[in-house]
């Protein structure tokens, strides 16, 4: 199996008729780290939800790890693709931290002792070993974001998708999150507005606006194209 993402000519409209994605084609290679940037409402989150099979493909095709994203493959695809949502309060739906981290592996049908081991390892990987018995409501935003990442790491995904991971974090929490993502060897697609973060970690950047990919190339090149950035509501850092 190869940890790739292949999206071809994907078009999607919401039930109210609003077109969120228009003819999107995007290929990501194994262990490649790609930033997805664009203004609010550009379709970034909609694209992410497709890669996990949470939205049905209306037109075009999506393959993840070589498997087409369709009902029969959803179990396997969701085990390969870890999606970290923007709002950690949506991702952490159990009262206790440990139960949230164990939720993914438990539903993958892994034996109980292996679930416990993986969950503790995932918490350790994000530096939250001592938090297993804590109550999610009592945590800070930075802690919640780290634990939200642990909830997918425990599933040992090959591909990680992040929606606005640095939004709302204070500088220290942001910095430690950036270091965490930099050291992770995984195929990664990260939607963000944080251009400094993009420049630091991602060799490749994709610009999405009004549901279309308007630029896809080396981050340095895109960052220096001020006309392009301004046209699509972005700022050079």
């Amino acid at each position: 199996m190869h940890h790739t993402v292949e999206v071809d000519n994907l078009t999607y409209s919401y039930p109210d008729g609003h077109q969120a994605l228009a003819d999107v084609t995007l290929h990501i290679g194994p262990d490649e780290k790609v930033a997805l940037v664009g203004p609010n409402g550009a379709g970034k989150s909609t694209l992410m939800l497709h890669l996990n099979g949470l939205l049905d493909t209306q037109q075009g095709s999506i393959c993840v790890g070589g498997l087409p994203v369709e009902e029969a493959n959803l179990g396997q695809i969701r085990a390969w693709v870890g999606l970290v949502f923007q709002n950690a309060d949506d991702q952490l739906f159990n009262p206790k931290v440990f139960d949230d981290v164990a939720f993914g592996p438990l539903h993958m049908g892994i034996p109980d002792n292996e679930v416990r081991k993986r969950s503790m390892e995932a918490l350790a990987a994000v530096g939250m070993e001592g938090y297993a018995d804590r109550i999610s409501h009592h945590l800070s935003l930075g802690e919640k974001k780290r634990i939200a990442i642990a909830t997918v790491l425990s599933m040992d995904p090959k591909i990680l998708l992040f929606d606005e991971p640095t939004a709302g974090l204070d500088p220290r929490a942001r910095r430690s999150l950036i270091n965490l993502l930099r050291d992770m060897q995984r195929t990664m697609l990260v939607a963000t507005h944080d251009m400094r973060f993009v420049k630091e970690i991602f060799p490749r950047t994709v610009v999405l606006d009004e549901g279309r990919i308007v630029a896809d190339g080396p981050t340095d090149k895109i960052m220096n194209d001020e006309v392009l950035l301004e046209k699509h509501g972005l700022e050079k850092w």
Partner: protein
Amino acid sequence: MHFHIVDAYQETDSLLHRTDARVKVMLAFVMILLIALTPMGAFGAYVGFFAIAMAGVVVARVDPLTVLKRSLVALPFAGAAVSLIFTMPGPSLGTVPLLGWSLSAAGVIRFASIVFKSFISVQFAVLMMLTTHFADVLWALSALHVPRVLVVIFSFMYRYLFVLADEALRLTRARDSRSAAIGGSPAAGRSIVFRAQTTGRMIGNLFLRSFDRSERVYQAMAARGYRGEIRQLDTPPLVLRDVAVGIIALLLGLGLTVASMLFR
């Protein structure tokens, strides 16, 4: 910015805190059942149950006043039985001045029994909640085969009660910060109808936000492999100490109920 709903759980280390949550949940339930089965007017047995609850408070090293105060919540409900005093047939203790209602001796005993019984029953529930974390209570309920759907609903309620309360707090603050009034203006604060409309819209807004959130939470569950069945890790066996605590408390309660039935 958090809305602080204080958890009942009091963090201390005691025998009762360490006891397995399944034993505590079962004991609270069984004690309430035994108290309900104790006959009316068996005040000796009520004192006995009260003593068991207070012994539990001492063992758990929680504040007895907290337990007593929280138990008062039962009294308004027990108050519904107040009509028994006047309606039970049997010998009369006298009449109420002015109203002329007759006080029934059997009615007074029955009413006092109901008040005591509900007060003591709630004490056991309060003691359980003070010594067991809510997340552990949920775990115990599902280990005791309470239907999973019900336990999951409780779990979501507990998790999102705080989140929703935070959201309501933010909405209220946003309203208050713009509820300015110019001194001397007769229209300051507007009419009650206007204010009611604002509140109504806020409630609607909160409902819509909750609705959106439920969709996102569902997506987060589906993304991690949820296919309609909630799974749980296997439960560890009870240790000897847990069984001992359960049996001792159970025998005491059972003894009181049986004795009160035999010697009434």
